[in-house]
């Protein structure tokens, strides 16, 4: 069943491509030591799992993918998953596998990856057989490390795990004499955190309503569940607005968003990615989601966000970012190349000559000076407050 998923098809394409031109595709070739190490766990090591998932969830919808998503939402646990993803060690099978759990949660298209990770970590606490607080903490640490190394390209996963560890373990509960009550306290905190994260999207949607005025034109890029939630809430509030959707190559997630918006009876116009500057003068504001919000206050998001922000800045249009606080990461990229590369295959529709190099990076970094405001569940922030929040969270 898993093998019939969209992501698998992409995966296979990638492998074929590799076999075909082993030398000619250096972009996807080089394996950093870290990614080789984790290759054992993750069969798709050199393409980003995060973007695989996104493509699978929000890309152009195929019928069998829909069926699979339905099954996943139904809570149908997929046995083949563990064969695929777990490192196959015996001790993994004996113990509870957090990656498994995570993957189960992850299959719900509405559930963000970080929230899935948080839920998975919470269930680690629940099913833990540890008898001391220390043991439990170590176990938790191991689990979050496993999750993080499972997909190093996903910023929200890493940040979500880190924040969870902070939020859950940094509590007086650890001082309790009685282990069981301490554990239940931890669990309570973990669930609360999961709950907060889950509700984050609603909060953001509420907060951003003040910024959408009647008659405005909004440019959105790619597919973001938060942005969709914002627009949906605005539509429900009887606001009159128009949306320009970019196509969102290569996985064409913009098509999906325009589809959703059309269902809400919002006037939508679809643009190809290169038509952004052309239509920017009609646009009143730019709304984007984020894969990660970094310490400088800039965002890491799907490829193309940076250029949209640049165009918007040069035309003095506000750029709003909707991002949940669990996407705040302690990263500080200085430029575009200063990140762990997240690669994904790109289908150009025609065979690419082997001599042609392909830029396969899936995301870019938008520096804070091009962003106007960030809508988060902590409030509406200027980019410089992100660092403030991070310092308070982590130090």
């Amino acid at each position: 069943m898993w093998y019939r998923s969209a992501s698998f098809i992409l995966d296979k394409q990638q492998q074929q491509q590799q076999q075909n031109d082993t030398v000619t595709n250096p972009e996807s070739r080089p394996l950093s030591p870290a990614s080789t190490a984790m290759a054992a766990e993750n069969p798709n090591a050199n393409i980003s799992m995060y973007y695989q998932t996104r493509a699978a969830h929000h890309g152009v919808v195929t019928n069998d993918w829909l069926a699979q998503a339905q099954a996943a939402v139904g809570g149908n646990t997929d046995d083949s998953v563990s064969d695929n993803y777990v490192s196959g060690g015996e001790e993994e099978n004996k113990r509870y596998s957090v990656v498994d759990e995570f993957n189960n949660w992850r299959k719900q298209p509405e559930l963000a990856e970080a929230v899935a990770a948080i839920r998975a970590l919470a269930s680690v606490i629940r099913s833990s057989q540890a008898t001391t607080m220390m043991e439990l903490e170590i176990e938790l640490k191991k689990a979050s490390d496993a999750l993080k190394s499972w997909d190093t390209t996903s910023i929200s996963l890493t940040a979500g795990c880190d924040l969870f560890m902070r939020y859950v373990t940094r509590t007086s509960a650890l001082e309790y004499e009685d282990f069981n009550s301490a554990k239940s306290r931890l669990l309570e905190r973990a669930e609360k955190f999961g709950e907060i994260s889950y509700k984050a999207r609603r909060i953001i949607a509420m907060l951003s309503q003040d910024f959408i005025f009647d008659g405005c034109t909004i440019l959105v890029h790619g597919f973001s569940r938060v942005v969709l939630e914002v627009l949906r809430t605005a539509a429900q509030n009887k606001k009159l607005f128009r949306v320009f959707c970019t196509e969102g190559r290569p996985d064409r997630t913009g098509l999906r968003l325009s589809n959703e918006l059309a269902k809400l009876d919002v006037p939508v116009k679809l643009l190809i990615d290169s038509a952004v500057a052309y239509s920017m003068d009609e646009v009143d504001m730019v709304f984007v989601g984020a894969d990660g919000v970094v310490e400088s206050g800039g965002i890491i998001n799907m490829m193309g966000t940076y250029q949209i922000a640049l165009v918007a800045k040069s035309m003095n249009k506000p750029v709003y970012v909707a991002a949940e606080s669990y996407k705040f990461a302690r990263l500080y990229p200085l430029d575009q190349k200063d990140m762990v590369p997240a690669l994904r295959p790109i289908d150009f529709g025609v065979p690419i000559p082997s001599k042609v190099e392909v830029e396969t990076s899936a995301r870019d970094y938008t520096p804070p000076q091009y962003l106007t405001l960030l809508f988060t569940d902590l409030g509406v922030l200027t980019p410089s407050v992100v660092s403030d929040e991070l310092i308070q969270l982590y130090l």
Partner: protein
Amino acid sequence: MDPRRVSRTVSDPKVRHVGFFAPPAPPDRSQSGPPDPTSSSPPVSGISPPGNSLSPVMIPPPRQPSTDLVRHYPHAPLHSPLGDPRAADSSVPVGSYNPSEFLSPSATTDCSDDPLSPGLSRMGSSGKFAMSLPSEEFDMPVAKLNDDVNMPPNVSDGGANMEVQKEKRAAGGKPLKEKTTKAERRAMQEAQRAAKAAAKGEGSKASAAPATGVNSTKTGKPVKPDAPKKDNSVVTASEKKGGDRQPDKDRKKDAPHPRMQFDDENRVEKAKKRSVVKQTEARNRVELFRHLPQYEHGTRLPELESKFFKLDPVHPAVYKVGLQYLAGDISGGNARCIATLQAFQESIRDYSTPPEKALIRDLTTKINSYVSFLIECRPLSISMGNAIRFLKTRIANLPLNLSESEAKANLISDIERFINEKIIIADKVIVKHAATKVRDGDVLLTYASSSAVEMILLQAHELGKQFRVVIVDSQPKLEGQRLIRRLVGKGISCTYTHLNAVSYVMHEATKVFLGASSVLSNGTVYSRVGTACVAMVAHQFRVPVLICCEAYKFHERVQLDSICFNELGDPDAVSRDYARKEINSLDGRANSENLQFLNLIYDATPSDYVSMIITDYGMVPPTSVPVIVREYHRDHLWT
């Protein structure tokens, strides 16, 4: 004790509402700090406590007092003079501010008075105290600072002060309540201000006259308090004004104000009188920078050396460090800071509290005198200022029940900890963070010589990263040459050029690493002169600029340019021709009236040019400097 405490707690919140304010001077804190931390800490913490601020978009609390003020002023006129006591009672607990302070300036000065003088006056009769002073001062004949020159006036003021205080208490409520309108109050204030000014003029004249001999002033002083007592109220008032101002000035003298305006003739005169180091001012100073101290280079050192055995009050370790500053043997923010702290450590080790003195207070004055000595040798760097503030806070917060040896051990270990945690380990953390930003194939550009940047380069090299270094240097110090020698010695491939060529070499650089003397609250980087130029060029070329700076160097001040606060170096250094040392084309021109040399030491880099600041708390944008100042420098405790 009690009445003062009350007035203090009342007056403190007022401070909080004024918006910008300077944190209370350390000696002040020694009094108010420990007993009522609640009243002293909130203003310092400023914006909002981090813990309970869930929402970062908090709106600052409304300014209570101003509204209060508005509400209460209408009340004040209603009170007839008859209603006095009740009015007084009701007005004080109004709490957050003291209306009397607004009503009469005299009351204000009384409340915000330097704790020392009322303390002294309360301790006993001024005469008695004056008796005890000379015995102590005589063994420091070299016009030793505060105690000598300042105490006697202080004492006399104490007397006068007490007198006036009594008087006021007696006449007390009336003047407060009698005022009815704002205009009247203003007129009153105006009058008092005039009186104050007059008294000040008098005082300065008076002090100038007998200033020929320190002893004469001293012997003269104890007599003085008697005179004003007999005088009529005008004189007492004016005298009191002088008195109240005096301790204020004393405090400034103790630790000469870091931003003393050196174009103010009076102050310079006074400062000179106090100074240990004889300083001849440079001729032909640049007009725009006249407010900064500038002395002839090399005139001070030999003289100071000859004084070594005469300078009792300055501990030899401190003295040595001072000489090293003067000679330029120790330079660089961290090195200077560590040297200072270690000298203080040494002096604390050798310190013993004189009989009938409190360690907390006496040691603070001692440290103050050391600090002013060091300032005379070379103006303090901001990092040193922070470190000294830390030390003073530590002294002030010592538990009273500690024995002397325990207290000393405490302080010494505190200093040790500060050096270790805030400087040495901080540097290691910075290096660790920064090394992650160095990638293979990078061309790193750096300016002059920063210890942190050097460590980063060496560490990155040790990690086996392949990179090249471009060192940009500038006259007159040419510090980069030493750096390049060390780097080349380690086998790092380097390019060396002068600042003139920076726009040429910048296009090949991929990152710019710079050190900093300090980072200010608005993200402005205060660093070696030339840094701003390099950062600006880098910004223009879209090369990221990384500032490496330990968090203890952060300062809550805001500075927009490099004019109002800076340091002037030896003007002759600029005039020299480095290429051909034997020829000095400007020789003989130095005395020309229309030629001025400007040798600035620091400049301010606007935060726009800075991509990232690497500190011991991680890599943060320049906008986060105030966050770190707020979170970690609270009360200067450097948690």
